[in-house]
């Protein structure tokens, strides 16, 4: 290219972001470093012991497994709920579709703390749902719903569903509507057209949305803390406890690195998948 702006020195363009980027890299390197230290603070040699400790520590291992199952559940439900909504948004150009779109965006703009609080009001022992269920005679006494795995899942779905819907809507919106019509003229019923045309063509959006939701869920901290109130330990809260309460920095750091590796592996697998889909 031969633009005048090519003259803008590369250093001017890159230095500001690089400073912040270096901080990130430093953070990662620091964690990696601590995780292979025999003890921290102090220097007593290097070891990979702490990675084994993670798998032998029931508390950490359970937190890790809980985190993965939480992320899986949240991702699947976001996908199942999000796809029909995205479908509706991608095809509809009506006033209603616009309002639904606004409704999907609204939670993004409202503070997560506010939303968590809303769920407390809805799901608490004195909450709306319990009042309704007792009132209708479905249950005789309020059910304890807060501080459970599923409450945390609901809170997370509420946070991540808009991301999923936006990702899917943009993919579905790019699919040429005449493809489904062409399939129909070739004798394909709508359900078949959906399975053979629309679904494969939206695979990329499904993958992107799922990976974003899954990764963000594995790192969540506030929601389990707030809706779980100490009852639902996920890896993030477990690591925090391991480090700041137990003072076991290396094992905490090793757990953090394991979480990071796992996420990276997932993202790598995803990009391979995308490339394979793209090659077709």
């Amino acid at each position, binding site marked *: 290219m031969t633009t005048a702006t090519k003259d803008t020195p590369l250093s001017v363009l890159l230095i500001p972001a690089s400073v912040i980027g270096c901080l990130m890299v430093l953070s990662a390197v620091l964690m990696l470093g601590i995780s292979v230290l025999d003890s921290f603070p102090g220097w007593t040699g290097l070891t990979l012991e702490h990675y084994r400790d993670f798998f032998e520590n029931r508390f950490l291992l359970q937190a890790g497994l809980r985190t993965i199952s939480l992320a899986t559940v949240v991702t699947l439900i976001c996908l199942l709920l999000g796809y029909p909504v995205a479908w509706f948004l991608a095809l509809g150009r009506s006033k209603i579709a616009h309002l639904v779109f606004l409704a999907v965006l609204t939670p993004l703009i409202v503070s997560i703390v506010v939303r968590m609080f809303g769920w407390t009001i809805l799901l608490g022992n004195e909450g709306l749902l319990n009042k309704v269920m007792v009132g209708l005679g479905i249950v005789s006494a309020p059910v304890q719903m807060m501080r459970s795995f599923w409450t945390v899942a609901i809170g997370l779905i509420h946070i991540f569903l808009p991301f999923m819907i936006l990702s899917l809507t943009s993919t579905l919106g790019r699919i040429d509507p005449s493809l489904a*019509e*062409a*399939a*129909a*003229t*070739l*004798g*394909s*019923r709508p359900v078949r057209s959906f399975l053979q045309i629309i679904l494969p063509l939206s695979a990329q959006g499904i993958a992107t949305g799922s990976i974003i939701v899954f990764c963000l869920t594995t790192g969540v901290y506030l929601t389990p803390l707030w809706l779980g109130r100490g009852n639902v330990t996920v890896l993030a809260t477990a690591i925090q406890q391991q480090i700041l309460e137990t003072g076991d920095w290396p094992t905490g750091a090793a757990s953090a690195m394991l979480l990071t590796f796992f996420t990276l592996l997932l993202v790598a697998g995803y990009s391979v998948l995308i490339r394979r889909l793209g090659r*077709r």
Partner: protein
Amino acid sequence: MLGQIAIAALSVHSVAKSLGGARVVKDVSLAIKPGEFISLLGPSGCGKTTLLRMIAGLEMPDSGTIALGDKDITTVPVWERNIGVVFQNYALFPHMTVAENIAFGLRTRKVSKTAIEAKVRDALKLVRLNDFGPRSTDKLSGGQKQRVALARALVTDPKLLLLDEPLGALDRKLREQMQVELKMLQREIGITTLMVTHDQEEALTLSDRIAVMSDGKILQDDSPKEIYERPRDAFVADFIGMSNLMKGRVAELDGKKRLAVSEKVILDLPSEVNSATDVSIFVRPEKLSLAEVPGAAGSSLPGRIVHVSYSGSVTHCFVDVGLQEPLTVLITNKSNHEDAGHRIGEPIWVHWDARNIVVL
């Protein structure tokens, strides 16, 4: 056999459709004989695609009926109609190979694997893409995509083929080549075809019959020759080919029918016209000629050349004869060494034969 009365392959009866509050197709009727190639010709936005989509079953008419052969298909869903459709943008499935695209319609019909293979091979041969089966569709050229779309639409042996601006996305040279191919293919398999186009040349070349559409209505439905030589109204005359349109009052003069376009311009008319009425007449540019001397009174007019447009085989001369618009005269460039010698500003006479004047 039913004797003389052949059942139309497709009959559209009084079909109307509103989209987004606007009446897009207004009371259209159309019949196509088996094996016929009909073009739906009109400016863009006149409702051609909407009519085609209703025939295909992609859009439901508000009123009227559509029949395929003797079967009313107005309410039959698209996927049960077996009408081949080639979409304007081809609508090839991007995640499937060429062969998979063509096989799609066969697979929905539960055709056996070996039969599918054979039919796909035949279809590829038909559109001269023999070895293209395993290719991905996104690397094909426009013309190749077009042929795959055609093969995909034809492979299920449909009773009717619908083409929506099939050659619109191709460049001129390729378009002309594909026109010939399309016509030969259509004649070879003898399929009844309805093509939508806004390109009058394409319609004239390909069709057995042309239905000219404007503003949701069919204005004239005739053979290409009739449409060109005997257009029924000013819109058809103006839309197809170039034309010189004039308005005036008919009067009798010396026992001959004359048209007074202005005080000075008085023309001979064909004798069958009623006198004392306001009429529009038109004459094609190639039916006019230029000369340096006047002809018989009433069949020539003096003027001045205002513009000359050379386009290879022919030249268009625009002559101001004192009317609102200059007359367009087409001259064939028969000689490559003699210059016809028409210059801008030059005084000239326009000649015509009254029999070539069409009264609308």
